[in-house]
């Protein structure tokens, strides 16, 4: 009389992460101008914005900046008056750039360290969607050595190699109550790496307009051996073996950009950028556990992202020899189709405005301040797989500061 009541616990922890988590904060001068920089030359941040333009930089640069990011989301579950706010946590996307070459040479070397993808959200362990996500801390740090060559006075090219160091820490409540009624928890925590490349071309037209075109490749980041930590009632411990590890691969998408710079008079620079982000590569999210049980199976969640487009514009006004005033804005379409929106980074079409100030502190030293406000449009959704149903709305506030030394 064995196995009359086999308990097949259909309680697979299904993790969903990585959506709309592109971070566009790669240089204070550029943020001030609506995060444009593919088609213009400003400073060492060109190593990121257009490696092809680096050789055109008149000077050598070493610079660093940080853009503390305040991500304020609200979720209103359908049919309720509840407002679930995510916790006040600040992410610190940062940049470091160096661009160097012999004076008046036709080439320059560059090095960039920056954070093009990431996410930090903490919804807590009491909200409506806690069984979908409690918190996510995702970081991707790209390290990019670069070479750029000036082919002619009006034309330069460049390319770089990208090494990505990624980490993820994700928690989710499990619907397995212990004897005091407390829910279980799953945490996936690990780091991994990925490789990619980028390339760009930059040229000045006869009319004085500058144009840049770049490609930043997809970077598949693999976490081979992350910790899968499950807190469950003692009687279910054998269904969630500990210690356990997981592996997963996240495609960080390719970005194709084209940018233009206009110089109507000596005091003004106008810039326009368009990015095409290849989110289409993100079809499924899989987690493979080292030890599986009937209750803990590998998961393969459909994501079915779509390519996203951003349109950006900005301007810089040179008020005097020491002071620059910048402003800009833009629009980005969402990568996440209806039915796939989830609380990791509740994505939606977004608009943003930016402003910035640049001040020449000393002959070789620039101080730049930037501020960006982003609004993610209200989006009412029922997720296909979790049935979490409600309305998300998000505001993002991003002040930033950087110092650039040039010679």
């Amino acid at each position, binding site marked *: *009389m064995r196995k*009359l009541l086999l*308990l097949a616990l*259909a309680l697979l922890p299904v993790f969903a992460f990585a959506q709309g988590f592109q971070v566009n904060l790669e240089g204070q001068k550029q943020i001030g101008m609506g995060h444009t920089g593919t088609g213009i030359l400003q400073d060492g941040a060109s190593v990121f914005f257009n490696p092809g333009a680096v050789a055109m930089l008149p000077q050598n640069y070493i610079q660093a900046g940080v853009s503390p990011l305040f991500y304020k989301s609200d979720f209103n579950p*359908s049919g309720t008056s509840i407002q679930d706010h995510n916790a006040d946590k600040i992410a610190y996307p940062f940049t470091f750039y160096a661009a160097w070459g012999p004076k008046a040479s036709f080439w320059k070397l560059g090095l960039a360290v920056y954070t093009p993808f990431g996410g930090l959200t903490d919804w807590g362990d009491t909200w409506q969607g806690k069984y979908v996500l409690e918190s996510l801390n995702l970081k991707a740090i790209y390290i990019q050595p670069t070479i750029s060559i000036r082919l002619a006075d009006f034309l330069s090219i460049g390319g770089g190699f990208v090494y990505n160091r990624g980490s993820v820490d994700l928690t989710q409540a499990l619907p397995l109550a212990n004897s005091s009624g407390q829910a279980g928890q799953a945490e996936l925590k690990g780091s991994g790496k990925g490789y990619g490349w980028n390339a760009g071309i930059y040229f000045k037209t006869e009319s004085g307009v500058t144009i840049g075109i770049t490609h930043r490749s997809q970077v598949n980041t693999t976490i081979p051996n992350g910790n899968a930590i499950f807190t469950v009632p003692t009687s279910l411990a054998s269904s969630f073996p500990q210690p356990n590890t997981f592996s997963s691969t996240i495609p960080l998408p390719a970005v194709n950009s084209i940018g233009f710079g206009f110089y109507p008079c000596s005091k003004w620079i106008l810039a326009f950028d368009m990015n095409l982000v290849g989110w289409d590569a993100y079809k499924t999210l899989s987690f493979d556990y080292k030890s599986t049980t009937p209750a803990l199976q590998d998961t393969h969640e459909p994501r079915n992202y779509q390519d996203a487009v951003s349109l950006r514009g900005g301007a810089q006004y040179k008020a005097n020899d020491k002071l620059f005033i910048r402003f800009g804005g833009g629009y980005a379409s969402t990568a996440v189709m209806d039915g796939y929106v989830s609380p990791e980074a509740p994505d939606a079409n977004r608009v943003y405005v930016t402003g910035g100030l640049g001040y020449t502190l000393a002959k070789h030293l620039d101080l730049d301040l930037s501020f960006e406000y982003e609004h993610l449009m209200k989006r009412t959704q029922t997720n296909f797989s979790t049935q979490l149903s409600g309305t998300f709305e998000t505001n993002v506030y991003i002040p930033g500061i950087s110092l650039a030394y040039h010679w």
Partner: protein
Amino acid sequence: MKTFKQHIYIIAGLLLLGACKPDIHTPKPSSGSADFSRYISVGNSLTAGYADGGLYLAGQLNSYPSIIAKQMQSVGGGAFTQPLFSTAQANGSGYLSLTGFNADGTPITTPVTTNLAIRGLLPLPGFGNVTLYTKYTGDLNNYGVPGIKLLYITDAGLPLPYANLNGYFERLLPGNSPTLTTSYLDFVTAKPFTFFSNWLGNNDALLYATSGGAGDFLTDENTFAQLYGLLISRLTANGQKGVVATIPDVTSIPYFNTITVGAILGGVQKANPSVQAIFINALVSGTTYAPRAATAKDLIVLTFPTSKIGQPVSTPYGMLPYGLTPYSPIDNQYVLDENEIALTQEHVNSYNANIKSIAAAKGLAVFDAYTFLNNVKQYGLVENGVSLSSAYISGGIFSLDGVHLTPRGYSIVANEFIKAINAKYGSNIPLANVSDYSGVKFP
């Protein structure tokens, strides 16, 4: 002029900070055309918050009427009082608790027998023993009485008024069994109210089914219709609005779907491959029962002691293995056979047709629990990232007795009632957060 400018900057700065957190505009709470100021709930064990084979404080606190009432607060709902057991007697009638799993994955349940609210056992001649519970006095909104059938609400046809026979009802009334005279119908309508929910009628079919068709009977269909009409006319006598629920298909609950004929046979065949069938005593027609081989269409109750299978039992043909021959079939009380199921379903369908037509005639909201639970059984349910089903324990909806619900199950039911009310009366009672309520508790 300069100070004016400074003020502008300060105000602008404050506005910016205030705008930091987005807030999503939600519709203004409204009770629509209903008045929720005094809501009462009429029903049986499900309404009382019965769970895990007993009525106890934690279950009462998660009863679906209490969840509905809590959600009604924002649309003009008043206080909602339940006949709670005291914290000193929090375990009420006692209940089952999950204490572990056997090596084969079968659950081990243990009765909780401390801190009970039992005040005595009253033998009633010609009826049997009635368990009496500590009296509850005070205001009452939740009139759920475990065990009550619609059939009993007027006391008609009973040897004594029903309040004397049901300890859960007895505890709500002043005076003691066997001297009580108040009928359930008079009891629930004694004090004015503005809104009601009614989920009576389950036991008119369920108790027959859970006894394997052996220990109880199905309420006559015409009697049901007549009593339901009487009940609703009394509840709506002063123009009160309300919501009623249909009777679930008894076969949608894990009590009948956990231990299956196939699983028993498979277990036997592991030890003895020559066994071809297990035998039950099945309904032929009327009251005639005859042994036959069981099929997948016959349902075995959750409480069937599987260890009995194959044990030698005494029969007119000598000692024979229990359940494995036509002469030693599984007892009727453990099996709801195919014909009994058909009979039950026929009654439930008739009950529900009457519930719906009476509710429609009176303009009441209807939660179709029959359809809802059948859908859960067939397709499962996903709520806020939690997969739910009608499976025993792992399904998350049904408690350890396989009939009543977990707090999570009751919160889902409460939301279905709320949706029905909102749709009917144009109110917008906010839905409860199902994620706040747990399923079966694991040690």
